[in-house]
């Protein structure tokens, strides 16, 4: 009886929750590829546009140029200065969000069906005809510098910056994506124009659209929106070094709770062991209360409010990272418990029950991600950037369920690397064995 219930449960959960996540692949007459999910029940569209490259396009002396450029896209375009552009956007109740990531420029747009054409014209101007007016540059530069100054005194930002600098050598990944006070202060309008030319091009654009729009309408919309962008952009960087010495590095900072980030080498998504490692990471520290790190560091010992691990799959480097924060007099113990768990998992592997629980959770949680037009647009654009096929949503849970105990434990033994597990701790940790720098 129980066995039957279990089988039924898995069957139900293995199906994507949205039976109507039906992706249409489009190629516009102008040659732009896009994925569309028609969802007519609410009269708006979520449009997600990504350009590969992002902050990794910046050279060392111009670090932050792409970020400043991205922040300026909505600060005046075409015939409208920054204030007029904002007034127009607000009067249409559209929202355009322009963000920088290490490997991409991400644009999230949301607009009503009733004034879609006008909203798209505004968005188009911001992408194709940004003004980069001098007063806007200075205003946004001041905001960016304010934020960079704050980062210098934020233990999380300090930890992330130090970790990246230690791991990635001279690659752009080693540098803060928004630049430094020095580089941002020195950026000129020409640098911003060059960053715009380099970052927003048709050879690197990905589009996901979800909502009240059909394929023909979307096709015309995209040719209008993106057709005048340059054909090619700046060259993308090559592979990044991943150098991890296995040490514990301390950045002294006067604050009561130490913040630690840690990491070891990760895995490429197209590696045959990817799903086994993904499941393994979930068991280790993948964001659920049931993870080993959460159980050992928080639930049993009360050493932290949260401890997590996660796979970082950038275009040019793969890491397996994590974070924890503990009071200065307790962080040494937290670090030791994490190191011990790393070894224990490598040597002892996971149990059949842990594997089954992880599969049930991961396959059940997957459909819960598809909870709105915006989230679905995000998922389908990310799938394209990862090079995943259009039927991936329907097969993804099978890939999780196909992971065997033997495979996950082989991968644990091969991939978990306590000797390269490297920590950066920011704070005033007590009793911590630290690596001399």
């Amino acid at each position: 009886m129980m066995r039957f219930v279990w089988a039924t449960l898995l069957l139900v959960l293995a199906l994507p929750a949205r039976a109507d996540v039906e992706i249409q692949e489009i190629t516009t007459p102008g040659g732009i590829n896009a994925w569309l999910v028609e969802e007519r029940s609410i009269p708006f569209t979520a449009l997600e546009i990504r350009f590969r490259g992002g902050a990794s396009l910046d050279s060392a002396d111009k670090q932050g140029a792409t970020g400043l450029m991205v922040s300026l896209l909505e600060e005046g375009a075409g015939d409208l200065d920054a204030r007029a552009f904002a007034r127009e956007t607000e009067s249409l109740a559209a929202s355009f969000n322009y963000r920088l990531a290490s490997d991409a420029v991400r644009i999230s747009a949301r607009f009503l069906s009733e004034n879609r054409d006008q909203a798209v014209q505004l968005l188009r101007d911001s992408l194709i005809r940004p003004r980069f007016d001098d007063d806007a540059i200075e205003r946004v530069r001041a905001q960016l510098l304010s934020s960079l100054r704050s980062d210098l005194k934020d233990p999380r930002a300090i930890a992330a910056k130090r970790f990246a600098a230690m791991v990635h050598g001279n690659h752009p990944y080693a540098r803060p994506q928004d630049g430094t006070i020095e580089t941002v202060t020195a950026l000129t309008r020409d640098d911003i124009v060059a960053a715009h030319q380099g970052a927003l091009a048709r050879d690197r654009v990905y589009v996901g659209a979800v909502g009240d729009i059909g394929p023909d309408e979307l096709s015309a919309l995209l040719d209008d929106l993106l057709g005048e962008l340059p054909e090619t952009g700046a060259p993308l960087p090559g592979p990044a070094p991943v150098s991890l010495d296995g040490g514990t590095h301390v950045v002294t900072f006067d604050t009561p709770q130490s913040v630690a980030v840690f990491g070891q080498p990760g895995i490429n998504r197209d590696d045959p062991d990817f799903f086994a490692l993904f499941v393994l990471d979930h068991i280790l520290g993948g964001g659920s209360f049931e993870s080993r790190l959460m159980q050992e560091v928080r639930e049993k010992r009360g050493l932290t409010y949260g401890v997590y691990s996660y796979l970082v799959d950038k275009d040019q480097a793969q890491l397996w990272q994590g974070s924890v924060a503990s009071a200065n007099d307790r962080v040494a113990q937290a670090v030791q418990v994490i190191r011990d768990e790393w070894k224990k998992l490598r040597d002892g592997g996971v149990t059949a029950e842990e594997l089954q629980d992880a599969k049930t959770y991961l396959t059940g949680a997957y459909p819960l991600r598809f909870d709105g037009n915006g989230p679905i647009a995000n998922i389908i654009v990310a799938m394209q950037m990862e090079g995943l096929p259009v039927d991936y949503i329907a097969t993804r849970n099978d890939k999780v369920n196909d992971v065997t105990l033997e495979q996950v434990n082989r991968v644990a033994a091969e991939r978990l690397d306590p000797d390269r597990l490297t920590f950066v701790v920011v704070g005033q940790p007590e009793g911590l064995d630290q690596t001399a720098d």
Partner: protein
Amino acid sequence: MLRLTAFVLALYALAFPALARDNVTSFSLDNGMDVVVIEDHRASVVVHMVWYRAGSADEPPGSSGVAHFLEHLLFRGTENLAPGEFSSTVARNGGSDNAFTSYDYTAYYQRVAADRLGLMMQMEADRMVNLKLTESDVSTEREVIIEERNQRVENDPSALFREQKNAAQYLNHRYGVPIIGWRHEMEALDQAKARAFYDRYYSPNNAILIVAGDVQPDEVRALAEKHYGPIPANPDLPERARPQEPPQMAERRMVFRDARVAQPYVSRSYLAPERDSGAQERAAALETLSEILGGGATSVLNETLQFDQKVAVFTGAYYGGTSLDDTDFSFIVVPAPGVTLEQAEAALDETLATFLETGVDSEQLERIKMQMRASQVYGRDSVESLANRYGRALTQGLTIEDVHDWPDILQSVTAKDVMAAARDLLDRRRSVTGYLMGEEVTQ
């Protein structure tokens, strides 16, 4: 424009207009438990929430943080579930769960496939009455909440500043005490204090069940009667009357210094009335005022201080209208380099004074109303945020009718209403001004 989220004063409940009312059904169980069902059949997913009309402002003096501590302890086992078994069962059913505590409410929720709803109810009903704790679990969890305070507050000078500033704003009301608790009182929290709060406030007649997603109201009613129905009402549930704030007679000012502050700013808040059931007009005018003065790129403060005078890198206005008792309306100005906090504050006051003279720009008011209308469309995209909207309203003195009326009340706000609300609000005698600064530099 850069989003300087680090400077945002507080995460106030956004007052989005409501969903078309035909997707919402509500009823009560015989034991007094209120039930709200929000249907959204786009995905076979359900959000199951239980909200208690009890938050940190309901705590007894000296036990600050106990509402939040109890929220953590509800995951530490019952007579029927081992410590951690609640969350692990949710996870084994492919769902995720969590909980949150505020001044006026504590809420528990799970997101899970729709056919798991009965199991969620069974477990949530169990921990409404069957909490069972061990001393060692209680002391470990106390360490966890102290690390949570370290992470959220002690490590962040802005959070310490906000805590001090709230304490200055509220002389008598518990809104002046942090939700997470004062550290010295958190260190003294124990099982007896948590148990007392639990026995007093956790009962079906003090709870609201919200189920949102791919469900039918009849099905929810049957499951709720089965799982929550047998729990008796608590006849001793106290009336919810907290010490109220006296009229503020004198302006209060404070300076908070911390070496970790890289970007100083000035914050100003005023005591303000909240949304009252059946009488939300004044709150709607204040909500609109906050949008006009500091809601977006074309707000009065943004236009004046960032674009015209170039004395600020960030400005904002916030109104916490959804609140059980009197609330606050606040401004923040982050000065541009070379501008002192005194100059930034003077520029804020001058802008407010000018606004009181010149009044509302009618085109701006139209834009704001258009955005409020549109948020009814966009809001339908997230059933979870709809569920939160009802939960917040119903635990903070409002009714479902009030939630449904709110969009129309917002649309009917006139420029005259806004100015009347502004004149009433902007009285320095009822304000607190705080400066957040780095350490003084001595030569």
